[in-house]
């Protein structure tokens, strides 16, 4: 039974809700009500997930650093977001005297709006995409690229040199990594032939030999593209090791310095929602969306698989935050332009090689050869091997 | 929803862009005005495609895509020139860029 009632339980619930209106309301009212139910569902799920992740992140980081995370507020500290929310709401909202009031107010609102908009095109389960747009992937990136302007507004509206510096670093980083972000999804779009996220998920529903899933991450170009996309997503959400814009030891809090209370919480929420959106897109494009990894596991509902894969990616995000130190700004830029962009173009070429070699085992081999050859050539050109020479100490012999 | 109403709106946008390009003294605003005029012309293309041509051939869409790309390139070069002029003259007021006058 591949389409069970449990799988579509949310769709049936929504249709039951809409049946109250269908007798005596015009068509456009039903469409608006349907969209509102979708929006409410997305907001409800993701704001709860945001609250949960904010406490889970602190607990996981705490465990990695050999200490407990927050464990006082509820059972195992899980009601900590409630305490944090109350604290944020009752804080005084301090606006600098010479700040530009309109821009200072609008910046966190618009960043959160952009992050929530981009969550609307991801397929969360079978028939569970909130808004089906034919160019859905383009919509996602268009809204994400509007975030840069809002970050700049936040930095400039605060009339503070640390904010301005943080905003310029943030924009430089986000613009540089937007190119690898978009070019790494090009191979997937090329092979599927559509920008519609539903079609991309549907193209990954096959199983080779009855058990290996046809996910794009299991091809050489898909694996490389997934890693590059994941790293670019790290940078776009300003997470460690790329959180130079909010480096707490260097420029206070970057573009968020002059924000207190609820506005800071909105920035925080927008960053985490951006993280969810990028992880959701990575699951859709590379990890097979809401499909099960093995054919006999299809009885588990589709949205469970989606959120399971999303949780694994979020765990990797938190893991990286607990493990790696912060990179320097020029290292970030060099990495983007000199390494990630050529590797992203290589993925496109490798995907073309895989497609025209006929999807057989030889196709895997030749596309892997393309990627490995370019990787080693790039390493030689960028002279990264010299940095792995054995360490010699000057005084401590 | 006739074609004329869309054309009137885009004519209004074009004349507001002309206003920005003619009456402002900061070099960047002149560029903003030019971008507004280009965007108004794009609306014209898409409106004409939608209303009178056979909509199975997306010709207006093609022209609009190329026009957006060209406008973006022109904005980039124009802003680079504004920065270069600022470095030399320390001012972006176009009234002060009159060394070739007379």
């Amino acid at each position, binding site marked *: 039974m591949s389409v069970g009632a449990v799988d579509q339980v949310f769709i049936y619930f929504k249709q039951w809700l809409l049946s109250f209106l269908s007798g005596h309301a015009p068509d456009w009212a039903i469409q608006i009500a349907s969209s509102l139910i979708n929006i409410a569902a997305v907001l409800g799920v993701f704001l709860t997930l945001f609250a949960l992740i904010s406490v889970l992140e602190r607990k996981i980081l705490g465990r990695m650093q050999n200490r407990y995370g927050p464990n006082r507020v509820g059972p195992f500290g899980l009601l900590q977001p409630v305490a944090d929310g109350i604290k944020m709401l009752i804080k005084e909202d301090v606006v600098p005297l010479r700040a530009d009031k309109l821009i200072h107010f609008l910046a966190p609102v618009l960043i959160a709006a952009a992050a929530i908009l981009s969550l609307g095109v991801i397929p969360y389960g079978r028939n569970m995409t909130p808004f089906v747009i*034919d*160019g859905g992937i*383009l919509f996602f*990136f*268009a809204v994400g690229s509007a975030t840069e*302007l809002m970050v*700049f507004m936040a930095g*400039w509206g605060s009339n503070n040199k640390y904010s301005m510096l943080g905003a310029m670093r943030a*924009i430089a980083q986000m613009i540089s990594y937007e190119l690898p972000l978009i070019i790494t999804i090009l191979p997937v779009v090329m092979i599927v032939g559509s*920008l*519609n996220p539903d079609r991309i998920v549907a193209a990954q529903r096959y199983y080779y030999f009855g058990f290996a899933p046809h996910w794009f991450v299991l091809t050489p170009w898909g694996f490389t593209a997934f890693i590059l996309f994941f790293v670019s997503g790290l940078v776009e959400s300003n997470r460690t090791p790329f959180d130079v814009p909010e480096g707490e030891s260097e420029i206070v809090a970057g573009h968020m310095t002059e924000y207190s209370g609820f506005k800071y919480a909105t920035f925080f929420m927008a960053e985490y929602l951006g993280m969810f959106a990028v992880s959701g897109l990575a699951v859709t494009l590379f990890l097979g969306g809401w499909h099960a990894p093995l054919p006999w596991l299809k009885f588990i509902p589709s949205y469970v698989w989606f959120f399971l894969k999303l949780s694994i990616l979020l765990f990797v995000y938190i893991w990286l935050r607990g493990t790696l130190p912060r990179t320097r700004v020029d290292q970030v830029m060099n990495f983007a332009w000199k390494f990630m962009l050529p590797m992203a173009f290589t993925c496109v070429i490798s995907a073309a090689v895989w497609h025209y070699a006929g999807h057989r085992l030889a196709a895997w081999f030749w596309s892997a050869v393309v990627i490995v050859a370019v990787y080693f050539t790039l390493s030689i050109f960028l002279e990264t091997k010299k940095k792995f020479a054995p360490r010699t100490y000057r005084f401590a012999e | *929803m*006739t*074609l004329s109403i*869309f*054309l*009137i*709106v885009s*004519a*209004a*946008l074009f*004349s*507001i*862009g*002309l*206003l*920005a390009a*003619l*009456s402002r*003294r900061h070099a*960047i605003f002149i560029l*903003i005005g030019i*971008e*507004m005029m280009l*965007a108004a012309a794009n*609306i014209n293309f*898409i409106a004409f495609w*939608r*209303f*009178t041509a*056979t*909509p199975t051939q*997306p010709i207006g*869409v*093609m022209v609009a*895509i190329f026009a*957006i*790309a*060209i406008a*973006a*390139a022109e*904005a*980039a*070069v124009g*802003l680079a020139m504004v*920065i*270069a002029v*600022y470095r030399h003259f*320390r001012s*972006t007021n176009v009234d002060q860029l009159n060394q070739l006058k007379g």
Partner: protein
Amino acid sequence: MSAVAFVIISILTLSAALAAATNPKLMHAALSFAVMFVGISAFFFLLGAEFVGLVQIFVYIGAVAVLIVFTILLTRHDQEKTRGFNWSGVVISIAVFAGLVWAILGTKSLSVAPGRFAFVSVRRIGELLMINYAWPLLCVGVLLTAALIGALILVMEDKRE
């Protein structure tokens, strides 16, 4: 295509355009310029060209507006001295608008209703770009490369002294 949506979008776009053209404060004008592009993109969605609307948001708000804001930031020397609004510009633009409206309303063949609509998919646009419009695509690619290199050379500082 609903008239209500058209009225709302046109009010938003034209008021943002007016604010961008006449506001003496630089940053507010640049940001209302970005809002105007959202309005124009909404026009494209209303007319059924969704791909162009998305490309418009992506290119104009994500790139051109950021460029303009950066340039305003880098050339902030005389930021409050943009006084002296030139009234002859207003006269000329009203004259141009009047002329255009007279030409539009005088043409009988422009008062048509929308034609039969066939949904233009992104796949169709992609096919056209690669098959029929391949030459313009390559030329635009060369143009963008030339613009990129030209802009870089214009702003690069001479380090060869």
